[in-house]
């Protein structure tokens, strides 16, 4: 199971990074979202994987690590805020300049 989670993190990272390296804003935003998943899962996994032991106090003796969960929970919400800001910036740039390239135009392009 560990290999599944680790490889999923790797694949999400690779896919996210590839999309982040694209030239237009929308794929970059998609890439950032994938990277967000990768990072969140990565952080979550730092509590190690435990099946069937949620950190809800009961008669059970073992619980999974609650701390990474608390960190990731806020990270998920914050990442929504970040995505929204990035999308807004991308949208503003596109509407203002009619161009959704991520990179500044190089002097050769301008010429």
């Amino acid at each position, binding site marked *: 199971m560990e290999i*599944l989670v680790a490889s999923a993190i790797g694949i999400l990272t690779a896919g996210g990074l590839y999309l982040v390296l694209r*030239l237009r804003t*929308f794929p970059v935003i998609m890439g950032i979202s*994938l990277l967000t998943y990768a990072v969140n899962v990565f952080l979550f996994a730092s509590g*190690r994987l435990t099946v069937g032991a949620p950190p809800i*106090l009961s008669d059970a003796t073992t619980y999974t690590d609650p701390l990474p969960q608390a960190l990731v929970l806020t990270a998920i919400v914050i990442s929504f805020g970040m995505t929204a800001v990035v999308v*807004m910036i991308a949208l503003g740039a596109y509407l*203002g300049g009619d161009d959704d390239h991520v990179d500044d135009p190089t002097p050769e392009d301008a010429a």
Partner: protein
Amino acid sequence: MSLFLIVALPFLGALLPGLMNSTGRVACAGVTFMVSLLAFIGLMTHLPAVMAGELVTARLDWVPLLGLNVTLMLDGLGFFFAMLILGIGLLIIAYARFYLSREDNMGEFFTYLLLFQGAMVGIVISDNILLLLVFWELTSLSSFLLIGYWKHLPEGRQGARMALTVTGMGGLAMIGGMLLLGQIVGSYDLSVILQNRNLIQASPMYLPALILILLGCFTKSAQFPFHFWLPHAMSAPTPVSAYLHSATMVKAGIFLMARMWPVLSGTPEWFMIVTTAGLITMVLGAVIALFKHDLKSLLAFSTVSHLGLITMLLGTGTAFGAMAAMFHILNHATFKAALFMSAGIIDHEAHTRDIRRLGGLRHLMPVTFVIASLAALSMAGIPLLNGFLSKEMMLEEATHTALFGMPLLVPVMATIGSLFSAAYCFRFISHTFLGPQRDDYPATPHDPPVGLWLPPAILVVLVVAIGVAPFLAEPFIKVVTASVLGDAAELPKAYFKIWHGLVPALYMSMIAVVGGLLMLLIFKPALGVWDKAARPEAKHIFDAVIASAVSLARRIIAPLHDGAFTRYAAIMAVTVVAVGYHAWATGTVGAPTRSVQPANFVQIAGWLMLVAATCGLVVLHRNRLLSLILIGIVGLVVSVGFVFFSAPDLAMTQLTVEVVTIILLLLALNFLPNHTPVESSVLRRTRDGTVAVAAGLGAAALSYHYLLRDTIAPSISDFHLANSYKGGGGTNVVNVILVDFRGFDTYGEIIVLGIAALIIYALTEALLDGPVRARLLNRKPDQPRSGGMHPMMMVVVTRVIMPVVLMVGFYIFWRGHNVPGGGFIAGLVVSIAVVMQYMASGFSWTSARLRYPYHGVIGTGVLIAGLTGIGSWFFGKPFLTSDFTYVRIPPFEKFELATAALFDLGVFLAVVGAVMLSLESFSRLSRRAHVTDSDQPMDIDPSRDDTQKAEG
């Protein structure tokens, strides 16, 4: 009054003038005056203690581990400067009230002025040199704002930039010097440093520390070769020039030299550097001042010259020199501030400060004439005025000072400086006020209202009073000098008096005054020679230096920083992978301590879905709508994964965030193209792919590595598990961590979320106000729209479902403390309920039914959370300490009431507000795009008259 309050008052008061701006000029100036007056009175309450030689202190630990504490001390020197700052500040505020015109934004001006005042007071009563540095930089910043106050004047902006560059650079050097000093002594407390003269002077780091600190002092106090910024700062409004550039800020450097005098002075290095710089500045400033035609320029260079004089006195390293310096600071502050204010009056009334266009004003402006002349004569060193006394002391000290082994050098130079000083004073009087009355003034000058002349008049009264009866100032100056000297030297016995007998200083003084008069007689030919002489123009040199620095920086940065974001991202990724690999390869890898858990078919199927969706997304990303669906799959699998791995809270959060994110991206896609064109070459895609795969392998390897190993140190999680119920009263440990253990983090996070939403709102506003608005309005949809924008079925369903969803949200919120749920998730659920209404019934219909603006909801949430935290203060507990109890209201079961629930309510509101404000902003863009947005919830509504008619 507590020292903390004296420093804090101007800072707190700085908020008031800005707020009071609309209430009128009198109220605005009045409140500023009252703030300063309060601080001044507070300072004066310490006068008896200071005169008795006591040390008033106040201490508060701030960052004790860094040695940075808010420690304040008030001794004679600090009191002296604080009195100058607050006392002259009061006069300046009154003066500025009448000086600024109706067009000027008075609230802004007084806010800056109070900021400056607070920073200045902070410098002079800090007992911690790191704290002092903070205030020091604050004065540079606030003076930048004040010099550039008239933003429409290019000279103002350039002068402000120059001042900031020079003093900022000096400040940077001083930080280095102070840190060295702190390292030598092992403490950043001034009171400790001042006790360690021998340790500091014996240290090999003494010279570097000295040079760096002096760089800071010299730039601030406009000493040669950094004197050039001060005249350019004269483009500031005159109250600023009078306050900052004659009485207070430029004396900050001198203050620091005086403060450090016991430990830094007395060495040959100190003597050589400080005395030489002071001497050159004094003579150079005086000579240039004589040939300046702008009244304020003349005064600026004369200020430079007098600062040089004081610096030179401190440089001599003798107790008598220090006393003369202190006395001259007082005298200079009185006569120079009065002179600046007079120059401002002349500018205000005659509409020019050009001395060549003035003259004969004595009959037109008799009051101003008397004030300015007395102040100028004092500056020239005429007996019975205070300038004479300290100048005598300076000349006396000069006769005992031998620089570079030449006993005559300093006395001769000092006499020359005094001679030119007398000459420009006489020129100031005669060319402005004496001579025939002219008929070509730009405006007919007359004496100003009392509000403008009273502040300088008060200062001139002091000038005369001290000049006639020096014994009045003597005890005070001696207390100040004693605190400058510390244990390093004995207080000099000399008395302040007008007549010292036929001493050399008297002859030198006479030469200076007579020479000054002669100089005025030959002024015309001298000016001709001066104008012909080639001399370096400081501003051009400064501009050239700045320009070359900028081009050098450009040359270095441009190839690295070319605006290609993708390249930075690639470089960053490669670097991280390389560093990670290096760590992996060189470090030791422990053996696995955890066993691999088996995976069954379901988990492999989930994994396959995730992989397929991710790969599909990468391959098919050019179709943007499709990629939204694919990323939705990824999000779903991640949520399911969270459920499986015992994280129900995370799963719920992820699922709800997924919904709002997809809605957000759909809204964005409404404007963005639906397709990404093929642009990058195969080579580039291969490169990106390689980088991405390398990073992915790295991430996978790292994750796999630690998934098989336990933490190397025991985690703090056990504490949370053990105390969640006992201390926090909740069984859902994740929620208790969020709202209790790490409540402060959460508090910060909801603020960040709120800020993000406000940014989005602001950007939307900016877009809708700009040229984009017209384009949005004229925009044609690139795809055919569906006929019914608000399908009846969806409208009905969303409305029926709304109470149910709200109920679910309430339930999730309330149970969150003990079972999965809580403010974050409930907030997201409720947001979705509201968003559904927008989507189904239209923007206008929904917003018409909104009772509270979303900004308000965010603010309320943050406030509730904050107040809950503050509430624990009333019980003597730290911020955000929570409490809980169990209550039973029949017929319900016993349930828990926790303050944490109140905090969670704040979180809930902030999340709802932030999510809704973001989404609403996006849809506002599209709303303007479709001009024909209906107020009706449904396009076809059988109950409505117009549809019946249309159909019928």
